[in-house]
């Protein structure tokens, strides 16, 4: 029996797809798998797992949380970067919040406030200043909603009302252009006001480094910057009752690949394992 031409064409296409699936979708990945079993590749292909005292404590490539049951950072461990998925490898991903996400909404902190909250907490934990540009001393985004007639360029030269949108208590500044700054009231919508982030006088290069206050792309970043490791060393040493110099000696900075690729990093899990080996918990 002879099929019509259009059907023959599609059957040919189906046969082509099936034969290519056998080659590209079965033989190819199996061949790569077989080569990956060879010594030298075997560990990586399996997942780069690392062990301590005979138990698998994680993968050297996958970041994890070093927090207690209450979710607070454990002082005896170096802390990883923030993760939007709580370091759960089954929920990898980023926050996807934009660079001008500065106004908190009910149930969701703005990215700016998240950065400020983290900076303040990390500063307190490690005994350094948590101050940042565009952050209030209380650890919220320093953002005003300015109401009043708009000028031609969109600004508000003579405001009638000014609200500090991310603070429900005493605002970070008393007055703006001669108008008293009010705290935000829950449930009120300030969308009509002009959003004005206030820079403040914090240094542009704060003590808490950028990677410590931003969530990574994967949510599983295994690394921190050497600067973030450095500000944590004293606190870890104190928690373990050892001199800071000994903890600092364990920090293995991984330089740029070939000297110019990527950025210098410190692997947090490996560092914490080295700590536990050298100074086991009493």
């Amino acid at each position: 029996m002879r099929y019509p031409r259009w059907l023959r064409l599609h059957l040919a296409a189906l046969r082509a797809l099936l034969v290519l699936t056998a080659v590209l979708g079965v033989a190819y990945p199996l061949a790569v798998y077989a080569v990956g079993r060879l010594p030298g590749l075997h560990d990586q292909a399996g997942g780069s797992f690392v062990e301590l005292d005979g138990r698998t404590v994680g993968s050297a490539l996958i970041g994890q949380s070093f927090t207690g049951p209450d979710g607070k950072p454990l002082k005896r461990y170096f802390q990883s970067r923030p993760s939007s998925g709580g370091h759960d490898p089954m929920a990898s991903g980023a926050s996807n919040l934009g660079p001008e996400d500065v106004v908190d909404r009910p149930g969701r902190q703005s990215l700016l406030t998240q950065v400020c909250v983290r900076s303040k907490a990390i500063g307190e934990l490690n005994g350094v200043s948590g101050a940042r540009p565009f952050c209030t001393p209380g650890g919220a985004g320093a953002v005003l909603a300015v109401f009043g007639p708009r000028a031609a360029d969109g600004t508000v030269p003579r405001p009638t009302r000014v609200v500090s949108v991310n603070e429900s208590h005493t605002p970070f500044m008393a007055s703006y252009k001669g108008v008293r700054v009010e705290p935000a009231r829950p449930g009120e919508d300030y969308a009509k006001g002009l959003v004005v982030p206030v820079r403040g006088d914090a240094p542009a290069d704060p003590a808490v480094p950028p990677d410590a206050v931003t969530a990574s792309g994967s949510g599983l970043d295994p690394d921190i910057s050497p600067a973030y490791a450095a500000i944590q060393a004293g606190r870890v040493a104190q928690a373990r009752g050892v001199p800071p110099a000994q903890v600092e000696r364990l920090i293995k900075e991984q330089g740029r690949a070939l000297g110019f690729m990527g950025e210098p990093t410190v692997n947090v899990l490996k560092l914490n394992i080295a700590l536990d080996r050298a100074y086991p918990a009493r």
Partner: protein
Amino acid sequence: MSTTLAGILFIGSLLMALAVVYRPLGDYMYRVYTRPSHSRVERAVYRTVGADPDGEQTWGAYARSVLAFALVGILFLYGFQRLQNHLPLSLGRTPVKPDQAWNTAVSFVTNTNWQSYSGETTMGHLVQMSGLAVQNFVSAAMGMCVAVALIRGFVRKKTGHLGNFWVDLTRTCVRILLPIAFAAAIVLIAGGLVQNFGGGHVADTLTGAHQQIPGGPVASQEAIKELGTNGGGFYNANSAHPFENATAWTNWLEILLILVIPFSLCRTFGRMVGQNRQGYAILAVMGGIALVSVTLLNVFQLTHHGTVPAAAGGSMEGVEMRFGVANSATFAGATTLTSTGAVDSFHDSYTSLGGMMTLLNMMLGEVAPGGTGSGLYGMLILAVVTVFVAGLMVGRTPEYLGKKIGSREIKFAAMYFLSTPVLVLGGTAVALAVPDGRAGMLNRGAHGFSEVLYAFTSASNNNGSAFAGLTVNTVFYDTALGLCMALGRFLPIVFVLALAGSLARQGRVPESAGTLPTHRPQFAGMLAGVTVVLVALTFLPALALGPLAEGIRS
């Protein structure tokens, strides 16, 4: 070494690597597409398909084969996802829901690899490696086939024949993509990518918690995902995930894989038309635009203008520490200049102007250097438009590579160029007009608009990257973006093949004193100008409402 210098060396070393492989790979691909002999494996494939490998096809037959192969691919992949719970290695995953399965099937067949699903929780290993990854190969190959058919249209005279799709497809997969992908996959494993079939491993962490770490045949898929400018991640975090991109040097290698075929195809083009300088002219335009774009993207990201980047002290939100800001920006440039859409950092959190560059790259129509094959045919269409514009200026019938560009040819070129803007701008307008479309935005105001514009730009240009804050796993977005991907891929392909058919039927016009030379800097400059001006005229109003409104603020 400073971050800036390291970032410059990173780009410079990529350029050197591309320059080194340009001739050998381009020449190799030239031989693949022009040698008459078939290997034994290939003969076996042709016998199974029932195709006569020496039988040539007209443009219509070629296009019908392309469309039939794509349609079968979509149906097969749809069924595969819907039935995955009955198949081995499914890891207990449930069937993918219908609208999402449609979206994903279209997405992978069209080389878009837009993902409204999250890989680690939605897809079993078999669907990933035997369904999605196979389309990573064949959809990339399909683009290269169409590009080669277009070149044949320029080369051949007084014939209706453009080659044989089944032969081009098989050779591209078996002789070009498979060997490179295999070698790359092994190197990537050495860097730390996983390749196993386990369902995951539960680690007892130092703090006494449990962490479930997934596995999978990732390295084999990652290699072809970049090489074929596909971009569909095995995991939700895509190439930011340490198991997909473990070190700074795997990041470098993945960028190289993304760029290597699109650039080297210029050499293949030059060889096929018998004038290498024509290939260099196209390469110069692609390379020039790409270099400007990547440089700007690096500058915008490193100067971290904007409230949150300034507060953080760097554009590190959504960026991995081992790559850093500069190398992530370079990856973002490569992935959006081609039709890849893999991401090693999250564009939604980029600075306003950095995010705009990724959008603009896609709006260029992905021709610098563009996807595998699709970049070259896109640029050749723009070359046709350019000789037409030049012809209008001096009042001569335009020619390109010895072929007259008459009204029939320019109509196909114009329809090719118009199809994507219609889908992007029309789709964005519809999404903003209906509540289901507006509901998906994560960010507010101008940035929310950018998310929607990005989604339709990405889908219609078959890129697949996202301002990932947008919630796209909804019936509205799955359906609408699926339609944009299908039309954005196959309408242009049909117009390209129709143009190729019309060119092949012509004889050759002998070069005369009045012929515009198309290998000189003058023409290359004009081609770059036409590319940028056409895009600016089409998309500036939309950009002004989104990233420009957000980025240019007092």
